[in-house]
């Protein structure tokens, strides 16, 4: 972005105290960790202010100042806390250098409107910091899980070896456990059986119904919509309770009267239960796609002699496919991630991955859960990327400019 405001250098009487305040903040933490908070604040403030003064008055070379700050503070950090200290030191050294020049050169005003007062500029950046910490809050738990899954010990915490970046502290043993342990493998396989079948059922029925709902004359559309969306609204525990009674009766009937094998009946029950839960997502995404669908296209196809089935597969389907696929992904993730209903409806032989994780978290605490979690985060990144690409493609197909 081009700069909005001409920038000018700021007086040292403004720059140095501000950087000193940041130095004091870091000094506070280092100081409390080493016994004396007030000494830490003082030393931190003095070091950072002195560094700033030397850079601006003496050195006059920004690149060199950057490396001096990074290496210098990293060395200090190494002295206090070893390797992790050095890394934090290097980061804070870079930060102190950056903020010194940012303030001194007046760069902080470059992208803001020229008429803002000093307080408004301060509020602008305070607000950014607040928002930044909210986004950190959102993402940290997911990021923390990843390094912990390489833990060499059977703990849920960072061991001292891990913090020293000692290769001894890391291992792939939890991943090995996941891929060799029967219990985990069986549950993973069950998830891979149940989720796709449930998805196929909810996508095929859901797409048909969404097409029906998008016609211009549907008697009782609101009521039908409310019924079809209800599995998403009713709390899972209530759905699970209802299905528990219902499917145990159905299961008994299938086993007793029709003589089907018990495991098969178990899978049928869980698949049907999950299919119902996935339906609202398919309905919502596909109806949303159909809103932008031009019905004169089907009429044009009919005009040129295509029968309804050909029209559907050759004209309508390719256009609404992105919506159908993202609805399907939602349905898949709903089933793949579902634990309450399967806990009630399924039996031990239908144990899915989330169920295994749930019992793992409640009973035996094994870091294998974290390895599984990391793998699942990878899967969700893939799914997220797919949905995003599909959304853009759909908007392009419908002639909207992508946002």
């Amino acid at each position, binding site marked *: 972005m081009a700069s909005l405001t001409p920038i000018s250098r700021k007086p040292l009487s403004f720059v140095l105290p501000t950087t000193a305040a940041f130095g004091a903040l870091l000094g506070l*933490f280092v100081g409390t960790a080493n016994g004396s908070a007030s000494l830490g604040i003082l030393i931190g403030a003095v070091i950072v202010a002195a560094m700033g003064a030397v850079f601006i008055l003496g050195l006059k070379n920004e690149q060199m100042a950057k490396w001096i700050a990074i290496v210098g503070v990293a060395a200090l950090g190494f002295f206090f806390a070893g390797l992790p200290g050095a890394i934090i030191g290097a980061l804070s050294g870079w930060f102190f250098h950056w903020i010194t020049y940012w303030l001194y050169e007046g760069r902080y005003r470059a992208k803001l409107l020229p008429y803002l007062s000093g307080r408004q500029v301060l509020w602008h950046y305070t607000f950014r910091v607040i928002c930044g910490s*909210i986004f950190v809050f959102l993402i940290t738990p*997911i990021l923390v899980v990843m390094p912990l899954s390489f833990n060499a010990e059977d703990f849920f915490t960072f061991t001292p070896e891990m913090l020293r970046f000692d290769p001894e502290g890391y291992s792939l043993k939890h991943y090995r456990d996941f891929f060799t342990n029967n219990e985990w493998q069986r549950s993973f396989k069950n998830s891979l059986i149940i989720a796709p079948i449930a998805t196929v059922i909810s996508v095929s*029925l859901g797409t048909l119904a969404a097409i029906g709902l998008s016609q211009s*004359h549907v008697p009782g559309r609101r009521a039908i919509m409310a*019924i079809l969306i209800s599995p998403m609204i009713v709390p899972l*525990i209530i759905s699970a309770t209802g*299905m528990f009674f219902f499917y145990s009766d159905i299961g008994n009937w299938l086993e007793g009267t029709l003589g089907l094998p018990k495991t098969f009946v178990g899978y049928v029950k869980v698949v049907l239960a999950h299919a119902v839960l996935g339906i609202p997502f398919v309905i919502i995404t596909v109806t949303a796609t159909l809103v932008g669908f031009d019905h004169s296209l089907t009429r044009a196809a009919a005009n040129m002699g295509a029968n309804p089935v050909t029209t559907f597969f050759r004209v309508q389907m390719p256009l609404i496919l992105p919506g159908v696929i993202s609805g399907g992904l939602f349905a898949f993730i709903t089933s793949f991630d579902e634990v309450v209903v399967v806990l009630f409806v399924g039996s031990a032989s239908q144990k899915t991955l989330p169920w295994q994780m749930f019992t793992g978290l409640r009973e035996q605490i094994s870091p294998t859960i974290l390895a599984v979690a990391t793998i699942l*985060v990878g899967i969700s990144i893939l799914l997220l990327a797919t949905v995003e690409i599909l959304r853009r493609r759909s908007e392009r197909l419908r002639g909207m400019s992508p946002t």
Partner: protein
Amino acid sequence: MSDATQPDTAKAGPVLAADGTPLKRSLARSLRVQKMRAMALIAPLLIFVLVSFIIPIGSMLFRSVENGMVEQTLPLTVVELQAWDASTGELPDEPLYAAFVADMVIAIDAKRHTRLGTRMNYEKTGMSSLFRKSGRQIKKLDPATDGPFKDQLIEIDKKWGEHETWSVIKTHSVAITNGYFLNAIDMQRTPDGAQAQPEDKRILITLFKRTLIMSMIITCSCIALAYPAAWLLANLPARSANMLMILVLLPFWTSLLVRTSAWKVMLQQQGVINDVLVWLGMVSDASRLVLINNQTGTIIAMTHILLPFMILPMYSVMRTIQPTYLRAAKSMGATNWTAFWRVYFPLSVPGIGAGSILVFILSIGYYITPEIVGGTKGVFISNRIAYHISSSLNWGLAAALGTILLAVVLILYWAYDKIVGIDNVKLG
């Protein structure tokens, strides 16, 4: 239609379609065909959802009032109990005891008496063992010859000589009961009508209150965190906003179990947050914060899990607010705060409303996260329902609790539909 053509059509009779049928009828037929086609497309799914979702929930709701067990197991006794007036304080007469033995002998043969004992035990502790123990003795009696039974039964267990035993059975011998609902709100069905449970048994009202209060706290903290984040997303240039959006959507797409286990890792006593605080010297090693297995843990974890559901609706509303409104307000002399509070905030209220109802609905029905990070003090009403389904097997009570919860959710959902509309629910 102009005046000139009107008399013309009247003269020519009804307008005809190409095939000679009146246009009106032809149109009605094509409309009917269209409706039929739409319904034919919807029908398979509608039937599937009705049969495998709506009916199960309906039958679960019915379970909360259904109480046929006493009547089915002890048909003769129930008839005799009708004649007995419990308010006199006297024990029932010989015919009732005889009817009871006759019923029990049949029930014991079918092994149904222990189930009845379990059922009665929900109302009065000790009934389960009374039925089980007496069953072994009664089995030896022959209803036709061994009478009179009153003294024999009291001999077997003196509880059969207690007025309360019989009045409890009489109270719960009706086929449709409000007993489970009374239990669900910490009351009980007694011969003298509904009464409060003894002090030490009143836990469910507390649990309902806790569920509501904690859901409100979670909703409020979600609003507080989501508002600035959504504002930033809506006001940044599209490229940076999309980058930040990933940080919102990634947790949204990540498995619930993954996020819950992440919070378990973060919050425990030897967990990441405590370690960092100790390392920074803000908390001493001996007095690590207790963040898990209590209400704090549930609130923090659920705020994080439900935050995307608040940010996304807020974002979609805020994106439609023109930034020029704020500039216009400022140009007319409003301070920053006035411009925000009098112009921007009222326009963003629909987003707050939509997000809050969504988060509140989701949080009062939550089960997994409170179960794992909530300990005993941070659990919700759903955890109690699960307990009654899988451990105590008091399904009637579970169904009654579920019905109350469902009613609350449906009211909120109705409000959501009024404010936002179901058609406007957006995903991702």
